[in-house]
């Protein structure tokens, strides 16, 4: 009798074989060949070796390698205060200690020599397979320190600087596995250490993201002092959305926290914050949460094994040993033992270790592996089927070509309609911006509107008079005289500030309203274009797209449109504001100069002072706002005019660019499809004969994978 489990496994292997060949070589595959075939090959190797993958994820420097070292009971993996791990490191149980590099192509003798030289001080023994594609590094002493030393030139970020001549070898390393006889590891488990997710390097970030879909258990590390920051959230969301994976959250560096903040029940402190963040971002939270100080655990292990001395540990600032504890240790009969016990206890490492081991023992690992692989096969097969089916449909029904061509032509026409609609909207925008008629109403234009607000009468009423009124109030005049008129200049400046702010506020309302209206039209139209594009493969839908999109009326499709408008407001703060500011500063400076001449005559009556000051205040306000000073730069009105013009032009340009980018993309794709369809039409029979077996095969794979998926538990 066949074991159904074994049967499923073997079937998955053949299915993966087929998918890999298809994605890697088939002419009818149109996706990212390189990525897909690698991902499939890796998934097959997972089913093949049947090992359960536990991946450690988190920001760089958050202590993933340190925690793994603590699990392994020795510092095998390099650790550093700066971004450290640059490559995936696989860790597996074995009888002896060795490091195995699998290469994409054979290593040259130069590369092997370079590795020998880099590892000469530990007298590492390097074995090379016959095809030069597997290198095995063994260390004579078999200590964690030697292994760490061997890993340094291969997987660390600093290796790029410290071992530049090993770069070719590092680049062709496909995988790097550390085999070691640690008790903590079981035979059927692989730990994977990853580069930090916030790495500045795109490659390192991608390496990490790509491995997630192949892992069965994810251990996420978060710095317990920075729980819930947006940057971590982005990658947490990514993990959580990968279905069927168990997640452990480790709040590491708990040594930074006060004792009362450590509450694994998540009622208060960072754990509660994490739960709260999940709730706010609608992340389903079914994960276990642990506090950990991997660093303290490692120090305790080091002390126990005699790798580090008591003095070294006591001198280590990062362990944050409270002074009371340090004093107690100093008086202890067995200081090393006591300190190690303290650190291990405080690290809370045993909680995590026990829970993880417990979980791994109870988890049906082979089941988890097969079910992940099955899901993988199902998703891939469904994905590849879509384009095969579309091509077949076409080849089988010649009338479709005419229909399709008509459709494509209609679509190209629709693109032109979209372009016209946007152009009309932009003309309307221009009329609002420069002045003109909109829907039968004459709009003054931004600049004209500003002029109607920034008049001499308005300045008199809203700047000059309030400033004079302020002078009459309380003891302001006296105070101003006493303090070299600085309070007066500050007040004038304040009034100008309020006045200009109010005008800019009003203008901004107009501008925002017209930009918003234009952006909404553009958003809708570009949204239609995007939807047309999305439906290119299913042409019968294409013509309905417009209706659906305008019904939903969503802005979502106009992703970059929002950014355009956002960038506008950024530009406006950057460009105009400082200049207006300088003008206010300069204007007030002038007032001060003029008033200082009066200083000697403090005996003047209040009315006399006000009489003397009035023309000065008025003159300064007018110059500053409207007229400009002789040889003293532009008035604020001129600056605002310039700004309004720039803003109007920048908005128009941004919208035009956005429109032509979006529309050109759809057109290009449409032409490309037409060309391909033309080809299919010419060789219909041959195409059908070619595609049919592939459809049958992929459909068969998809159906069976689905059946397996539907059975709740694999046999």
């Amino acid at each position, binding site marked *: 009798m066949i074991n159904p489990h074994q049967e499923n496994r073997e079937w998955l292997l053949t299915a993966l074989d087929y998918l890999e060949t298809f994605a890697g070589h088939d002419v009818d595959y149109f996706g990212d060949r390189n990525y897909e075939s690698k991902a499939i090959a890796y998934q097959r190797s997972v089913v093949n070796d049947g090992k359960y993958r536990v991946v450690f994820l988190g920001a760089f420097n958050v202590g993933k390698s340190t925690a793994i070292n603590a699990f392994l009971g020795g510092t095998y993996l390099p650790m550093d205060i700066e971004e450290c791990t640059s490559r995936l490191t696989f860790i597996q149980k074995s009888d002896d200690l060795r490091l195995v590099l699998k290469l994409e192509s054979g290593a040259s003798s130069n590369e092997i020599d370079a590795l020998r030289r880099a590892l000469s001080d530990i007298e590492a023994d390097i074995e090379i397979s016959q095809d030069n594609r597997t290198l095995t590094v063994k260390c004579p002493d078999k200590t964690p320190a030697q292994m760490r030393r061997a890993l340094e030139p291969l997987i660390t970020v600093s290796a790029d600087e410290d071992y530049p001549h090993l770069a070719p070898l590092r680049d062709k390393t496909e995988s790097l596995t550390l085999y070691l006889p640690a008790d903590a590891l079981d035979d059927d488990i692989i730990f994977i250490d990853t580069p930090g997710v916030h790495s500045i390097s795109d490659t390192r970030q991608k390496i990490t993201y790509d491995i997630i879909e192949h892992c069965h258990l994810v251990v996420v590390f978060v710095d317990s002092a920075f729980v819930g920051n947006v940057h971590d959230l982005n990658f947490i969301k990514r993990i959580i959305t990968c279905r069927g994976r168990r997640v452990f959250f480790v709040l590491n560096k708990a040594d930074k926290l006060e004792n009362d903040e450590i509450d694994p029940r998540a009622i208060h402190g960072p754990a509660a914050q994490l739960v709260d963040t999940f709730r706010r971002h609608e992340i389903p939270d079914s994960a276990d949460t642990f506090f950990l100080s991997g660093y303290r655990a490692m120090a305790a292990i080091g002390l126990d094994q005699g790798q580090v001395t008591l003095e070294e540990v006591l001198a280590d600032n990062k362990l944050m040993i409270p002074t009371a504890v340090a004093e107690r240790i100093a008086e202890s009969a067995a200081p090393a033992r006591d300190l190690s016990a303290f650190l291990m206890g405080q690290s809370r490492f045993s909680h995590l270790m026990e829970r993880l081991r417990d979980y791994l023992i109870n988890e049906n690992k082979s089941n988890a592996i097969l079910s992940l692989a099955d899901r993988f096969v199902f998703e891939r097969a469904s994905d590849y089927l879509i384009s095969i089916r579309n091509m077949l449909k076409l080849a089988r029904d010649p009338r479709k070509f005419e229909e399709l061509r008509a459709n494509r032509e209609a679509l190209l026409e629709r693109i032109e309609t979209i372009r016209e609609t946007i152009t009309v909207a932009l003309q309307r925008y221009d009329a609002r911006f420069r002045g003109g008629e909109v829907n039968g109403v004459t709009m003054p234009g931004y600049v004209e509107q500003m002029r109607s607000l920034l008049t001499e009468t308005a300045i008199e009423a809203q700047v000059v008079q309030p400033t004079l009124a302020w002078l009459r109030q309380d003891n302001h005049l006296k105070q101003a005289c006493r303090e070299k008129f600085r309070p007066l200049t500050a007040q004038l*400046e304040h009034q100008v500030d309020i006045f200009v702010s109010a005008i800019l506020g009003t203008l901004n309302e107009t501008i925002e309203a017209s930009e918003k209206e234009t952006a909404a039209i553009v958003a809708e139209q570009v949204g239609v274009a995007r939807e047309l594009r999305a439906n290119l493969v299913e042409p019968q839908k294409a013509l309905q797209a417009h209706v659906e999109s305008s019904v939903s009326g969503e802005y979502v499709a106009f992703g970059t449109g929002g950014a355009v408008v956002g960038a506008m407001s950024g530009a406006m703060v950057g460009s105009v504001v400082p200049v*207006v500011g300088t003008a206010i500063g300069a204007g007030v400076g002038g007032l001060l100069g003029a008033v200082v001449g009066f200083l000697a005559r403090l005996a003047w009556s209040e009315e006399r002072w006000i009489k003397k000051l009035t023309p000065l205040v008025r003159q300064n306000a007018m110059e500053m706002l409207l007229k400009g000073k002789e040889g003293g730069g532009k008035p604020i009105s001129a600056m605002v005019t310039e700004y309004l013009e720039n803003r109007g032009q920048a908005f128009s340009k941004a919208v035009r660019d956005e429109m032509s980018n979006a529309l050109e993309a759809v057109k290009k794709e449409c032409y490309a499809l037409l060309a391909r369809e033309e080809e299919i039409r010419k060789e219909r029979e041959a195409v059908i004969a070619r595609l049919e077996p592939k459809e049958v095969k992929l459909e068969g794979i998809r159906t069976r994978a689905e059946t397996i998926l539907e059975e709740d538990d694999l046999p």
Partner: protein
Amino acid sequence: MDTTMQQGLQESPLCAAVFMGDFNTGKSLLINALVRHDILFISRDESRTPPVFIARSDSGEPLYGVRQKGESAVEINSHEQFLSTRHIKGAPCDSDALGALVPDMPFRRLAFVDTPGASTDDNKPAILKPAPALDNTLFVLTTTLEYWPARHTMALIKEYYAQFPGRFIIAANMTDQMNANEIRRVRDRARQRLERHGITPAPPLFPLSARLELARRIPGDEYRKRIKTEVRELCDAGFDAFRVALYEFEANASLNHAGYSLDTLLMSTLATAVTMSEKGQDA
């Protein structure tokens, strides 16, 4: 701002230092350490205060003010009220700015602005305001020595470096949580790293610890004792250098300048600060 607030100032502020950065990097603690008073609320929770403006008061008493949304006047408040003005867990807050005047603040004419953390998603600038003080503003990015070269921080640095040439410095907080050799290495390599990313001349980066600095004047403080001497010295030296950089900025701000009203200074720096943190967030 309100005249009562304004009267607390003998001299109007001349220039400002705006503190920006992710939440939890210790912006408020850093300002508390600089002004040597527990003025600002400190919490590990992501509690978002509206932007806070801090300047020297000569009245002998600290003054606290809160400005409600849509109003121009500032209400004078007790410190308790002032501290409780926060957004808590996404709940909105009625006020759009806070102000505090601090007696004996070691800076005579430099004012501080504490901005909401860069991970905040509300607090958009209400309307465009003129910004007379912008040229007299120093931008201080607060980050941690441990994580400073992260992708998102580097993006902020690039942005600020281009926007505020010569008026941008980096405070790398929480230096006390590392070992002395590590601090030296990270510090010494910072310039090289920045320059490798095309940020030349690199803005200065000060490794410091606000927590240690606050404890500096408390004799026999347990936390200071817990930190190893060498680390403590590095942190103290870093903080001193940081303070000197602020003093220098204050001294170099134009001497015959009349000063600004609190409102002007606050609003102008704020509009920029908030826009900038949004950009950082997008990156």
